[in-house]
């Protein structure tokens, strides 16, 4: 069988000699351990995976095409929906790219709040990963613990943005509004208790012999393979490549924060588990530094033709009302050019490639998302391993189908 392009489609191998020992197994797209609508076609020899072929696109909504029909500021809510577990990182990456095109200076307080919020968002992403990963392995309890803390983070996001998941809080030119007065105190109260919660997860899992045996030595990925296949984020660092864009190519004043980048050289599922667990502890340190040194000032850039005015000003001042009307109805023109902005989100390196033709709508927005590239490495990790380990490996690369299919 061939497709329209004339390339053969993977199908059950024709029985000839020893070959008929192999079985083709379909996993997904409605499989609970595939975290969405991922479909894997597996060729197995008994319990051993011989070949693995991911079939994606079930969630393709054409977000990049939609972006081309929207004003620049209208793209921000679309970015939330791509990686719905780490929404603020998406907002940040898109806004940084457009701000680079506009050459817009962002107030310091907005930059620090952006760091604080993306770290909260990263914790959110890692908590979901830990809960679901452990659940896939069979340790159901951890899920209940991590979602308790995740609920707290969602409440904090709701306090600033009015929305729990689709925040759209980071806007071009700063933030959508000042956070509530008690927000920083609430974050402080939350992160004060979080380190002991992480110890609690660690107590449930790290010493657990079943969990350890299911993860150790499973899904090995060498550093050379990881680089060749475009793997980024925790899986890359668990393979021994010490790169983190927050430290190495800092954005949004990350250069003012001190934190360690956890690295492991084991390259297996266990190493990826430990690296992410350590990253959560480092995120707490970054949030603490952001709380301690939070600068004073505005959260929006002084650019009335680009940044929406505050609600009160819009209702009381003529100038602000005119700017508000102009931005909402006509958008704002962005100088022609092309930029690529990369940041580090919970899953790995996100990149937004924005091409402007000088009008108020982007000519092209391309989103580079880590799971898309990491999925290519799944076959390398699973080949020669047991069928049951495929579930452990999928959990360890922390995929989000929304960002793969876009």
């Amino acid at each position, binding site marked *: 069988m061939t*497709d*329209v*392009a004339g*390339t053969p*489609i993977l199908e059950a191998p024709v029985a000839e000699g020893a070959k008929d020992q192999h079985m083709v197994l379909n996993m997904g797209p409605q499989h609970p351990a595939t975290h969405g609508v991922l479909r894997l076609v597996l060729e197995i020899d008994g319990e051993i995976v011989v070949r693995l072929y991911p079939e*994606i*696109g079930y969630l*393709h909504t*054409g977000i*990049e*095409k*939609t972006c*081309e*029909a929207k004003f620049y500021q209208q793209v921000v809510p679309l970015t939330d929906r791509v990686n719905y577990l780490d929404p603020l990182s998406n907002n940040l990456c898109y806004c940084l790219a457009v*701000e*680079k*095109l506009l*050459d*817009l*200076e*962002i107030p310091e307080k907005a930059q620090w709040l952006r760091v604080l919020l993306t770290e909260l968002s990263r914790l959110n992403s890692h908590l979901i990963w830990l809960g679901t990963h452990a659940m896939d392995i069979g340790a159901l309890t951890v899920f209940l613990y991590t979602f308790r803390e995740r609920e707290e983070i969602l409440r904090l996001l709701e306090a600033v943005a009015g929305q729990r998941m689709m925040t759209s809080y980071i806007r071009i030119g700063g933030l959508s509004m000042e956070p509530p007065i008690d927000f920083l105190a609430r974050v402080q109260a939350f992160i004060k208790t979080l380190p002991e919660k992480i110890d609690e997860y660690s107590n449930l899992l790290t010493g657990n012999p079943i969990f350890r045996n299911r993860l150790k030595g499973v899904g090995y990925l060498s550093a050379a393979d990881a*680089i*060749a*296949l*475009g*793997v*980024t984020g925790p899986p890359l660092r668990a393979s021994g*490549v010490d*790169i983190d864009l927050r430290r*190495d*190519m800092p954005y949004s004043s990350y250069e003012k924060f001190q934190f360690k980048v956890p690295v492991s050289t084991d390259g297996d599922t266990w190493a990826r588990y430990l690296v992410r667990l350590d990253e959560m502890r480092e995120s707490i340190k970054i949030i603490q530094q952001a709380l301690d040194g939070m600068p004073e000032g505005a959260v929006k850039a002084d650019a009335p033709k680009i940044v929406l005015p505050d609600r009160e000003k819009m209702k009381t001042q003529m100038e602000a009302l005119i700017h508000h009307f102009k931005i909402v109805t006509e958008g704002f023109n962005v100088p022609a*050019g*092309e*930029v*690529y902005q*990369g940041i580090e989100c919970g899953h790995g*390196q996100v*990149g937004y*490639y924005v*091409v402007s033709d000088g009008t108020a709508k982007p*000519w*092209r927005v*391309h989103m*580079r998302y880590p799971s*898309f*590239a990491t*999925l*290519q490495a799944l076959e390398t990790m699973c080949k020669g391993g047991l069928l049951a380990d495929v579930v452990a490996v999928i959990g360890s690369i922390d995929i989000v189908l929304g960002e793969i*299919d*876009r």
Partner: protein
Amino acid sequence: MGEANQATLSGKAEVLAGMPDHPAIVAILAWQPDALLDARFDRGELTLTVAPESIRDAAATVQAAGYNFFEDMTAVDWFPSAPRFQLSYHILSHRLLERIRLRVLLDEAGPAVESITPVWPGADYYEREVFDLFGIRFEGHPNLRRIMMPDEWQGHPLRKDYPVEGYR
């Protein structure tokens, strides 16, 4: 923001004069000066336009020069301008902590270019995505099939002459 304030260098001559020591430029000039058609340094990002037939060798050259990590690849449709298609390869160096953009311009009729999967296997899905959504073929790709759209789909949705809504 600091990077963005650096002066813009447009055109091959200006970039070669302004940043003669840049490792990617040095490597490409040492390999084949004619393959570099144009260059631009804008908003802290270096764009090197290379001839379509030499993209695979150019990728191998910059890889040898320390740009070891293939980060992203996509296309831009400049319809109705000519040449219509632009391919943008974003390549990161883990050692130099710097990114470069390789650019290829393709004409409308039968756009095709050599696949860079022999250099970076990770380009596999990216090239399939561009093939699916833009209809640009990659010679030597191991499995050039649609990736997002159904296999029997007609047309390439990210082309500018493909409507955003309504009937095709």
